[in-house]
């Protein structure tokens, strides 16, 4: 169940990670090996499947109270002006992978 380099490249694009051609090749090989290894899960029977999540059985709910004392300290932003965070103009970011 190996994935072709185009698929790895597509996923890297989807995850917004740049890759040079060498890295892409290595990554493709390694990801392929990993997916091949975990593919044994395929044989797990779906019948009688009960989901399991650790932790509390139900989400705690908090009262609708605004924190007193205003804004807590926050880290310095890479680019900031007039109280606003700035990024380069959103161009082709439509996530079509």
């Amino acid at each position, binding site marked *: 169940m190996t994935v072709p380099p185009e698929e790895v490249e597509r996923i890297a694009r*989807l995850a*917004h990670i740049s890759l040079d051609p060498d890295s892409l090749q290595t990554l493709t090989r390694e990801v392929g090996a990993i997916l091949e290894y975990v593919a044994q899960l395929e044989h797990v029977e779906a019948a009688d499947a009960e989901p399991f*999540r650790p*932790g*509390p*059985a*139900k*989400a*705690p*709910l*908090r*009262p*609708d*109270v*605004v*924190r007193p004392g*205003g*804004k*807590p300290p*926050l*880290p310095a932003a890479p680019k900031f*002006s*007039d*109280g*606003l*965070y*700035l*990024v*380069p*103009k*959103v161009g082709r*970011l*439509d*996530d*079509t*992978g």
Partner: protein
Amino acid sequence: MTWETVIGLEVHVQLATRSKLFCDCSTVFGDDPNANVCPVCLGLPGALPVTNREAVRLGVRAALALGFAVHRTSLFARKNYFYPDLPKGYQISQFDQPLASRGALEIESADRGDVSIGLTRLHLEEDAGKSLHDRFPDQTALDFNRSGIPLAEIVSDPDLRSPAEARAYLTTLKQILQYLDVSDCSMEEGRLRVDANLSVRSAGQEALGVKQEIKNMNSFATVERSLDYLRLSQIQTLEDGATVEPNTFSAATGTLRVMRTKEASHDYRYFPEPDLPPLEIGRDWLDEERNSLPELPRALCARLGEQYGVPSYDAGVLASTRALADYFEQLAGAGVDGRTAAHWVMGSVLQDANENKGVLRVAPTRLAALIHMVGNRQVSLQTAKRLFPELAVTDEAPETLAARLEVIQIDDEDQLSEWVRTVIETHPDELSRFREGESKLMDFFMGRVMKTSRGKADPKRVQQMLLDELGR
């Protein structure tokens, strides 16, 4: 060829909570940018979500009022995509186990009469921040005040058959949500957002046509107009023998512009949110909310008509908001008959409210007292209407106010007779002319008496007396 239009609506409504869905930041609108943020809603490393009970409660109430089956167990899920106003790179939403499914909304369709629109689901999710594309050149500016604000997403089945029905759906939905105090549904302040999808098919065809979507509409009128335009455009395309492209349009500029071509392969890779255990709504809680729902608009409207004998159009106006309906009922409860109360509420009260940001300034008991003064002929209806806005700016009882302004009518018989006789005696010429047939001189005599009394004479009594005297 007759065409059938198929429309579905997805509405996002901001729930009226004080704090955000997963953190205790304030939800107040209009504060300085990035004033209401914290590690959680900014997506700082190591921060975790904790769910707001009130947001869940409001979601449950909305779901119950809309006839949904509320799921006692539901799950939050991560909806994964990259956008600069989405701090975590995923939105905490709900996917395959939403808070509620299978609801219905009754609307009045101009074409089809009363019709029930199926509602697919209602779920909770957090809002993203706001992107400002025009503040700085070549840059997008981000304000995260809105990030993490609680939203309910309500999805309709594709049951609407015209743009007008879509508008009726929105109006009805908004009214119900306002009745519940779930949201003020202000589209201007972005607390209600609508995405619409539309397709056409030839009448009788079972299969649905290709769907197109419209986003960024800023009013119900725009929704109707945009859908109308799209409907005609699709019909034209099909009649020309071409195919409809599954485009998404933005109505932001006033005309429809293509935003995305083809349903972009948005693979959101949903999976259950591991930072939040299942959302459990206990039976007791559900019953408590169900039993404490207010009377909803339809039922209220019907009852007002029946109980107070007002025509259905009037009942509709009176029931337009819960506050107005309450006011009307209190007025009626203070001894004012239904029709009179309706007349006053639909008139003076509503007008005053519209001029004062929707505030009902005069307490119903005080208005009732004023109306009783009209009944007792202490003031004329006209005077009463003039006095009404004055009551909003004084604490005085209506009687005291009227007395102070010296508008209380005098209907003391002796006093009135004296004035009438005096006016007649001092105008012998007019008297003879009247007796000779100039009947319009009645107005003259009326005017003289009213002037003598400085407007305080009860005009009805004066008229009667003049008729008696002049008739002799």
